[in-house]
């Protein structure tokens, strides 16, 4: 690992100034991706900008009317330990607890998981299914975009030099809604998703009112399969309707063959995971 400078700004404005002045700078949240990449030589930098001391990036606030504000540097353990959040977004709390083990969860953030822009990032399909938005600050001011538009290629996101993800916003859960993220890993822990499916559903008297389905690790970016969710809207809750949506998810997947799985196997898993995630989300929605 080569030498680099380190800065820990106290405000968003200061962070943006530093990032804009150093095009090779890297933003540091929990560092559980970044430090690994720097040590292995996969990334290089001359300045690391630690964002953990900026108040807005540590905000974690849930309001039944306004929804969830999740600061980009909030570590996973704070997410699943937050009682209000656990009640309102159980799937999000559960997914935050999937990442790494206890030590990793003490540092790793959902913001970092998203900004790292790995196709296999575990929290991203669920954020997409929950219709979350990204709040971004940069030299030109702030902007907000849906999570599904944030990643553009493996390891690349839409942030331009000087920009920073400040927070994520998740709308309040609708009545009779449920969500779930399921991943497939060969082991039971400490593994990267071979494929993953995040879903959210809203029910209405035995029918789907709406649904959103997104996939992990089967395309260059986390993938919103809009048509699979739309196909459920208005349909009765049944094995048949969920199976059909699962087949649409499978058809949308564009996986590659690598050491983590073959393309054919991954496509197959998309259907299995989507169906299982839908069943779990429906069960949860029926309880709400």
């Amino acid at each position, binding site marked *: 690992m080569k030498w680099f400078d380190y800065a820990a700004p106290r405000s968003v404005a200061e962070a943006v100034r530093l990032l804009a002045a150093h095009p090779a700078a890297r933003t540091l949240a929990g560092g559980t991706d970044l430090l690994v990449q720097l040590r292995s030589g996969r990334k290089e930098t001359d300045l690391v900008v630690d964002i953990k001391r900026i108040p807005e990036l540590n905000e974690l606030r849930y309001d039944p009317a306004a929804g969830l504000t999740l600061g980009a540097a909030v570590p996973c353990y704070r997410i699943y330990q937050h009682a209000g959040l656990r009640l309102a977004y159980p799937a999000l709390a559960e997914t935050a607890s999937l990442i790494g083990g206890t030590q990793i969860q003490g540092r790793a953030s959902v913001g970092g998981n998203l900004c790292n822009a790995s196709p296999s990032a575990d929290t991203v399909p669920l954020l997409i299914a929950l219709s979350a938005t990204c709040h971004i600050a940069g030299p030109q001011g702030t902007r907000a975009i849906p999570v599904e538009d944030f990643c553009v290629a493996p390891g690349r996101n839409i942030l331009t030099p000087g920009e920073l993800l400040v927070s994520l916003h998740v709308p309040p859960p609708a009545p009779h809604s449920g969500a779930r993220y399921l991943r*497939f890993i060969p082991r039971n822990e*400490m593994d990267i998703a071979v494929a993953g499916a995040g879903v959210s559903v809203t029910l209405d008297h035995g029918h789907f009112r709406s649904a959103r389905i997104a996939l992990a690790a089967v395309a260059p970016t986390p993938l919103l399969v809009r048509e699979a969710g739309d196909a459920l809207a208005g349909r009765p809750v049944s094995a048949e309707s969920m199976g059909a949506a699962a087949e649409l998810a499978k058809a949308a997947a564009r996986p590659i063959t690598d050491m983590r799985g*073959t393309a054919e196997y991954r496509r197959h898993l998309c259907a*299995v995971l989507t169906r299982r995630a839908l069943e779990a989300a429906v069960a949860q929605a029926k309880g709400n």
Partner: protein
Amino acid sequence: MSAPAYQVVGTRPIRHDGADKVTGRALYGADLELAGLLHGFVLRCPHAHARLRRIDTSKAEAFPGVKAVVTAADFPPSGDRMVDLGEGETPLSYIRGNVLASGKALYCGHAVAAVAAVNVHVAEEAAGLIEVDYEVLPHVTTALDAMREDAPLVHEELRTKEFGAPGSRPSNVAEHFRHEMGEVERGFAEAEVIVEREFHTSTVHQGYIEPHNATALWNNDGRVLIWCSTQGSFVVRDTTACILDLPVSQVKVTPLEIGGGFGGKIPVYLEPVAALLSKKSGRPVKIVMSRKDVFEGTGPTPGSFIRVKIGARRDGTITAAEAYLAYEAGAYPGAMVASGAMTVFAAYHLPNVRIDGFDVCVNKPSTAAYRAPGATNAAFATESVMDELAENLNVDPLDFRLKNAAREGARRADGVKYRRIGCVEVIEAMKNSEHYRSALNGPHRGRGVAIGYWFNVGLASSCTISVNEDGTVNLVEGSTDIGGTRTSVAMQAAEVLGIAAEDVHPVVADTDSVGYTAVTGGSRVTFATGWAAYEAAQDVVRQMRERAARLWDVDPDAVEAVRGQYRAGSHRATFRALAAQLNRTGGPVVGRATVNPKGAGGSFSGVICDVEVDPETGKTTILRFTSIQDAGKAIHPAYVEGQMQGGSVQGIGWALNEEYYMTAEGTMANASFLDYRIPTCYDLPMIETIIVEVPNPGHPFGVRGVGEANIVPPPAALANAIYRAAGVRMRRLPMNPAAVMEAIWAAAK
């Protein structure tokens, strides 16, 4: 004959190194700090096979903070010759070549140069400035591909040793040997059922937690001092001396604590490099591998292609068996195919056998031992075929094995005639176990069994025991302690001396301070070093009897010593009381022994496992797993159980997920613990254990080594269980979820 009653042997005292290990005080190689210490970094070849046209180190040498740079050109100018470091005759150029490549790099990860600098980051950055002009050559990474006529040659000068005689044509096959017994064709003609199958196993790594490390100081007096993590301090001494053209007495090796080895820490990689860097810089140099270095630059166990054919009569008697074993040696000859051939049918009494073994060089890291090396691959094949045969014959798989089990007096095709062995007892213990007799219900579930064997070895060990005035003793041995052997060795001395295990203080000494001791490997330490401790303790007892005789003014032969109680006529004294009198009776007492025992007793083991296979994902969940093993005599039962559990877990990883995933370029794609998937505790049930004790007649306490046989049956047992759960016969390792799913799809077509 009833078993002798022991006071210490068979109990479970707390290990002597326990406090240091659990408090983090134990000193490992990476912890070592010396005044003026430099840090080394090894530059490794990124190609599977490449000619080294030119290496320019000038920019690295000029980099601020760099104190030395070495390449193979820095080895002493002595030419090539054959050397024997205990593993048979090997060209010195191969031994040196694997430490620093010269001429060609033979695998991705092959060390090419090394830098010593003020810290490891500077060393790494400087290593990046070394300019290597690689001519990338065609590569070959599997045994079958490497055996083809048109395969790229790993070593242009290599000729196949065919049935002992050298061949004339260049080849990647270093050796082809055959063991034959009886009349194989006639045996198959007599068979009523024959099953013949082909199997593939992937290259797998031992996966020890602690990466290799070495610190060396080339002292001003010309002596080379080395601190390292090794399974054999004398192997490191002898190999380093050989590579550097020094007399063995010029090298002193101090083994530090070892965080696992499983055979992988027998070869020498870093020590001579650190020594050369120290010679050039005049300062001590420490090198610690990264995990990637460990995967790519150290010896995994061979991948293999195996064909096994077994024929039996309807009554379940095996009439003939045949095996074809082609093992990947990696970059240099020496795949563990000889031991694969010794073990492939070791569990069975067979009249007619033919075994062909091929030692095949490929462009992968030079392979090393891994817990019963070669045997797990072979058992995967044999025990899968045995399972299929039992199914065809419609008999219980354990009854089928029992009917053909090897017993005392049986001869193997490689010539060995068994002394007392515990094969039958292990199978019977499996049959009688609560696990095997329990019902397994539920869909997608299945139970599999398999057995395995490892022969174990003897070899030289030395030990001294000095008596302290307080009635305790200090025991000095040379076996680096991987699996709790300080304690299992100390217990054997304690048993002889009639004192508590806690009253023996075992020390693993450096190579200047103890007599020659062979590697910690071959499950030999509790057997052979334990025997040395037994003999040294007998020596102490003999001397203590003399001391008592002097005190009591009787003839030494009149003094009886039983379990630490010394008596002659009406005189009585404990070991402790006599120890307190040492100064009055002639001074210190030191017992010593050096042994080279021949009576190593092989160990059989078995596995019963229950699995559930998810029919939609192909993922195998292990519901229950029992390991059964013949320990001969379990000196410390808890450590025997620990070995059985550890071997089982490694076997499970090998079976289900572990593999060197090779890219088209011949590089390893998954050189990290993230993608090289060893099982975590979330992937395992509690491994149940059943210790069988069929004493080894070749050891004073009946010890058989237990470190290895336990890894042999798991892959086959899991394959057999998966078959019953999912209906597919898996003949390629690993049986990961995707592979099982694809087999399920293929079966449905």
